[in-house]
């Protein structure tokens, strides 16, 4: 790394890249730590709080291309690391039976690099996003140890391949299953919670510049009440909040009202069970009432803060 950033510069760079973070969420500091120490960053937290976004924004900040490995059950090294180009190898075998050496077949020419190997072979620094690592099985997790610890992989036919440029590795997990100690030990850990009202307002305003501040605040408060008061199966994600706000804007609304909440609720709650839970335990009228109450609470809290300072 030639030009080292300080933490302040890094925080600014994040903001310039359009990523809103707060001091309390520790996102900037932890991501900075991971990149500076050259360790993989393991990000956990519920779906839709902006885990994947961290990798994307790191790619922007460092001007490094993003290589993404989406994990799923049954993912193995042939899909994640490399695969031999069989067709080409067979053709080669057919073409040159007499003069063929084994080494001819197992060279980089016949290698199909998958995301992990792509990241190691890349001449420039990359950001490697291993998304939803908790979806894979523990064997695959163990297989990653060498990559995450030493930034190298061993291909039996070719030997060990070391990273030309150490990639910035970001792993995300929804916590569906506990990850192994070995994996956790090799990473810097960050847990991301859903954003606070203030932070969400800032995100909304940054991503939807046309959105009036008052409306952004009302939307963020209402979503915050939904997240905190109801035990939803899936809490509304930040992107869903944005969709909701955009819908309001498109329809030319200036504020939330109960009929509108009823009509657009499915933009926030995506399962029938959650919608039923909402009507059973809250309802649109109550939601608006609770969010306006939250407003007062915030005012008090703000007042107290000012008083303190």
């Amino acid at each position: 790394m030639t030009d080292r950033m300080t933490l302040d510069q890094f925080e600014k760079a994040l903001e310039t890249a359009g990523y809103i973070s707060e001091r309390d969420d520790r996102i900037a500091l932890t991501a900075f730590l991971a990149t500076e120490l050259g360790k993989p960053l393991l990000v956990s937290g519920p779906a839709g709080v902006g885990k994947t976004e961290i990798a994307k924004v790191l790619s922007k900040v460092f001007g490094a291309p993003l290589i993404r490995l989406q994990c799923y059950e049954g993912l193995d090294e042939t899909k994640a690391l490399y695969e031999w180009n069989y067709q080409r190898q067979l053709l080669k075998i057919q073409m040159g039976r007499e003069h063929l050496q084994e080494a001819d077949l197992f060279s980089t020419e016949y290698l199909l690099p998958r995301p992990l190997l792509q990241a190691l072979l890349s001449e420039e620094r990359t950001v490697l996003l291993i998304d939803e690592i908790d979806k894979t099985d523990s064997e695959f997790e163990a297989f990653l140890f060498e990559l995450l610890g030493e930034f190298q992989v061993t291909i039996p036919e070719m030997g060990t391949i070391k990273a030309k440029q150490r990639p910035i590795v970001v792993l995300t997990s929804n916590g569906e299953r506990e990850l192994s100690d070995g994996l956790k030990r090799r990473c810097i850990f960050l847990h991301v919670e859903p954003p606070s009202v203030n932070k969400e307002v800032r995100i909304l305003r940054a991503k939807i510049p046309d959105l009036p501040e008052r409306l952004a605040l009302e939307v963020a408060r209402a979503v915050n009440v939904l997240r905190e008061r109801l035990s939803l199966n899936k809490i509304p994600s930040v992107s869903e909040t944005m969709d909701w706000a955009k819908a309001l804007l498109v329809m030319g609304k200036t504020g939330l009202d109960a009929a509108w909440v009823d009509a657009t609720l499915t933009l926030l709650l995506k399962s029938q069970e959650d919608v039923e839970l909402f009507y059973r335990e809250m309802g649109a009228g109550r939601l608006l009432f609770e969010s306006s109450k939250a407003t007062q609470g915030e005012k008090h809290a703000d007042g107290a803060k000012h008083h303190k300072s």
Partner: protein
Amino acid sequence: MPMEQNTINHRVSELDRHLVEFAQLLRTVGLKVSPSEISDATEGLTLIGLVDRANVEAVLRATLVKDVQHSQAFEEAFRAYFATPEQIQAWQKAVEQKTTKWDEQIESTRKDLRFQDNELEITDEQRAVYASLREKDKQRLRDFLERSSQGTRSGIPVDHSYQPMVERALRGSLEYWRKKLNEEDEPILSPGSTDGVLSEVERALREREAEVLSRDLKKISAEEWPEVIRLIRRLSQRLASQVTRRYRAARRRGGLDMRSTLRRNLRYGGVLVERSYRSRRKGRLKIILLCDISGSMLKYTEFIWQFVYGLASAVNGMKNFAFGETLIPLTGKFKKGQTFEEMVKEALNVSGKEWGGGTNLGKALEALQKNFPAFLSKQTLLLIVSDAQTLEPDKAATLLGEIRRHVRQVLWLNTLPERRWLETPHVKAFLPFCEMYECYTLGHLTQILSKQI
């Protein structure tokens, strides 16, 4: 220059010492911290600096805490370890006072519990039980010892050879009191650590235990149940979605795996010498749930109901059984709109049994083997929820061993705390044949389900 170097080294080693001590404190409260993580923390602090307390906390958290569940323990440990020296001194003093008081009490039990002027051989825990008794009950035990010391047998005064007998009687009595005082399963132990900081962390964590996840399930109040129920449902759904497996390459069975076959045969110049096959798709696990509804489990009734109900609504085709003195099948009795409680009550009415009787796991397992042999296959997960207090434990253990050979896994959720397992002979007998987890808080349940079952 060398002097400056020396100062830096000195400062670094001081930081190292603090970090190692802090890591040790974290280990004591249940976190796993490896040396490589301590080294990461040192590097991180060197990078970020020690000026800002919040930053220091963030660096230590990012490098030493790798699980959200440990977050609270970390926060308390950080608060206590990096408190002001005055505060730490105050904690240390409080602990010392407690320890002195405790030592005095134990010392006085040594004086109290004697047989013909000989000290009795009993454990420290038993002494602690004696020390926590009311004066009246203490007096009763002292009277007993006094009388036995002066007792006679066939007109001859008893000698010291009777001491083991007296000790046995006293141990029995103290064991009774331990159980009685320990209704809540709180151990009566020494005042904990002699270290002020650690004891402060332990105190704060105990206080935090008031939160639902780590509270004993029998202590959860009625108002909190809706929240708990939702948690159980979510956990059950997770369990249900975990029990699937897709195709995997295997030697035989299933269709030919072309890709893997080609790959294996490249070494023979592309001639297909060896073949690889896909394995058959493994079906979903069949779960058999065996719930203890005997008297000793009464306090966990609500938990069991909700657990079974949550699991049944998430996992298709689960077979439910309750057992007390006999096996009570609950299978196939789920009517639409019927609550689980009604279903159990109905099933109990039909079988003429009632909730809260004795336990005989042996009989229940025998009935399961005899009447429902088709349920026990290599795809079966037998889930037992019980505190292992049963009649005929040896028979039950043998039967469990037999069943273990026929099913894929036996999972036992035990509502008895793990620290009591080894002193309960019943539990010891079952341990070789099942994977047993302590499960009396929702936190336990979450942990069990997050380990890929």
